[in-house]
């Protein structure tokens, strides 16, 4: 059976590679159709993406995206569509920034406190959707979309002068009080710019995700629910509790999404804190097939694309092409995965059938020889 496993691995890799190739072809077509030379564009992106400062940029971007992908993947693994990672991380980052800006404890105390605030706020916000689902039967897809909008309103209300916001000198930017220097997260002193220390937390989260899902009872239960809710229930998993729990976990991880930016970059939550990363997370989880390593590759790819297309603009292309590339990749990837999944299953079934038939034939032969 080792052989089948190797094949599955191969098929698993084939899918995204195929999708990315197709995506680049489609993009090339779009570029060519709009009168731009496609291949030098890819050349520029690639060259630029390989530069050391680009690598730093990509790693830093990927840190955030990775966490977003993980948050979404936790839900996906049990067939929950947490579309609300977006609202969860924003609300979490906002409250974490407010706490961080209000206190001046030693960093060793305050940093964990900030992160904890974020994790708890994210979990609570996602938990609402979980509770509504199990007690009131509200689809999490709809409720998390609503909660995203409500989170925006809450932040909008609190991020005002006189509440938790403070206005800058020019009177144009409103933000929470900046987090004191002592509570900035450490950085790796790479040149020309540093790699954010939060990447360590992201790696730890990825390992924890992998270990929990594949090596613990809890993870097994979670995956069971994802594969078949009815079988899980019959096997003794409390599915309702599991839904709430995994929503809480998903939200908790979502709480981390804003932390690299907050603790390594902006040190405050202002009106222009990045939005929409929750949706990027969905794309990345799909791309990485909910696998911790796959998600990492997806996050890096996304970072690379954004870095590379930033350079494209410098060279006279429209960097909006990145949206086209990303969209096509996601669509191709989901289709490719499905095709490969089905192909693999069918292949395995016929292999099993063939092997069994061979066994049976061998047995018959033996018997005949014996009786002869």
């Amino acid at each position, binding site marked *: 059976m080792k052989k089948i496993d190797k094949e599955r691995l191969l098929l698993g890799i084939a899918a995204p590679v195929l999708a990315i190739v197709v995506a680049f072809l489609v993009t090339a077509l779009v570029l060519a159709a709009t009168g731009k030379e496609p291949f030098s564009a890819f050349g520029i992106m690639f060259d630029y993406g390989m530069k050391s400062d680009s690598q730093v940029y990509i790693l830093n971007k990927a840190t955030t995206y990775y966490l977003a992908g993980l948050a979404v993947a936790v839900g996906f693994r049990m067939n929950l569509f947490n579309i609300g990672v977006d609202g969860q991380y924003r609300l979490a980052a906002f409250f974490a920034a407010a706490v961080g800006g209000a206190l001046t404890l030693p960093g060793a105390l305050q940093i964990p406190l900030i992160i904890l605030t974020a994790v708890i706020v994210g979990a609570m916000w996602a938990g609402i959707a979980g509770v*509504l689902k199990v007690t009131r*039967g509200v689809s999490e897809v*709809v409720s998390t979309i609503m*909660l995203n909008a409500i989170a925006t*309103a809450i932040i*909008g209300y609190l991020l005002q002068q006189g509440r938790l916001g403070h206005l800058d000198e020019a009177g144009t930017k409103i933000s929470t009080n900046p987090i004191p220097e002592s509570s900035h997260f450490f950085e790796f002193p790479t040149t020309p710019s540093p790699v954010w220390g939060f990447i360590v937390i992201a790696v730890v989260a990825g390992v924890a995700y992998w270990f929990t899902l594949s090596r613990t009872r809890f993870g097994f239960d979670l995956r069971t629910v994802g594969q078949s809710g009815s079988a899980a229930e019959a096997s003794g998993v409390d599915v309702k509790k599991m839904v709430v729990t995994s929503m809480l976990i998903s939200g908790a991880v979502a709480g981390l999404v804003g932390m690299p930016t907050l603790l390594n970059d902006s040190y405050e939550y202002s009106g222009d804190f990045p939005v929409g990363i929750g949706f990027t997370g*969905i*794309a990345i989880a799909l791309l990485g097939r909910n696998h911790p390593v796959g998600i990492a590759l997806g996050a890096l790819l996304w970072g690379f694309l954004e870095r590379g297309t930033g350079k494209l603009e410098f060279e006279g292309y429209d960097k909006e092409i*990145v949206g086209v590339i990303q969209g096509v990749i996601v669509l191709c990837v989901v289709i490719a995965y*499905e095709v490969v999944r089905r192909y693999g299953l069918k292949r395995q079934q016929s292999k099993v059938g063939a092997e069994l038939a061979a066994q049976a034939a061998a047995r018959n032969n033996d018997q005949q020889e014996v009786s002869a």
Partner: protein
Amino acid sequence: MSATATSTPPPAAPKVSGGKGGRTRLSFPVVLLIIAGVLLALSAVRAITGAEDVTSAGQISAALAMAVPIGLAGLGGLWAERAGVVNIGLEGMMILGTFFGAWAGWQTNPWLGVLAGVVGGMLGGLLHAIATVTFGVDHIISGIAINILALGFTTYFAKLWFNSGEAAAKGGSPKQSPPADDITSVTIPGLSDWLHSIEKHHWFFVSDLAGVIGGLVTNVSLLTIVAIVLFVLTFFVLWKTSFGLRLRSCGENPVAAESLGVNVYTYKYIAVIVSGGMAGLGGAFLSLVTSHIYNEGQTGGRGYIGLAAMIFGNWRPGGLAMGAGLFGFADALQLRNGGESVHALLLLLVVVLAVLAAWKLYRKSFVQGVVSAVIAAAVLVWYLGTDTVPTEFVSATPYIVTLLVLSLSAQRLRMPKADGMRYRKGQGK
């Protein structure tokens, strides 16, 4: 069959069938009664609080304009889901609708724009159908992918097509198209003015009724009328024709449909493409009627809201219309200096919650009853202690209302039985 000489009466009666086919289906008079009840409540609120805008013609007219795109997106969702395909890609299809609508609209005439918007949405629908029906991709995943793709695509081409040459000269920009011409609006002459004069008296109920009707007959875009016709047509086609029966059967039990010679793939394709077309029309409505230009981010999540409205409406056109109306109403309220109006409606919420609490307590659901009562009291305190609602909360009103309504009613909803499930030809046993 035979052998029915039973000696014991059946201990547990089987489920009684709810009359003619439907259980949650409301008859026409009941719907009218509900509408009258809501109007009565609104006029009471208006009379008590003096928030005149709650039932004014302007408010209703704005609500209608806000409701149409949501309703069309929801109608798109309805078509797809009745055929068993969940369509969360409505948002993306709507974006395509706004984009192509404006693109063709400014160059030719708005009706061609509408057509282009519909076609744009249909292309999105086609993609969704290919992914979900032919390749069997999970519906939600495919929908999300389409939303990402549509956004990327339109952003790129908007910059390319609207920010150069003639388009730029006519006011296009990287994020915005040049304006298209108007689509004609109609007003029923005489009636509108008469209703308006009644409305101005602020008579209890009568003026409110005049306001509501006035809002519905004044300055109505032809495309709004098209949308309304589409609602009726959808009901007729899906529930009164054999085509509709086949389509719905694909959402209820595709294997059974297949066994009777229905080509399930074809119907699913048709449904999802129509679904995209409806969403595209909703988009075109945004970029050609409520404004005359395409703007990046113009849909503002209305595709998702349409989906919510459809669920709210229990997968039926009538219910969906109510859901879309509610959203439109809340949205319009909010934009028309909603602080005061929403504040007034808090009073209504108190009454609703109090009644609910009483009902739950009567039915011995103590926890729910007490929770409702506590919330009612809290809202009442809020109402009495303030005289307006902060803008931020007003803007969240539609979302909070949806959550509230869904939490109260989700368990009574019934979606098509095979909705969202993968279906393969020949999977039946």
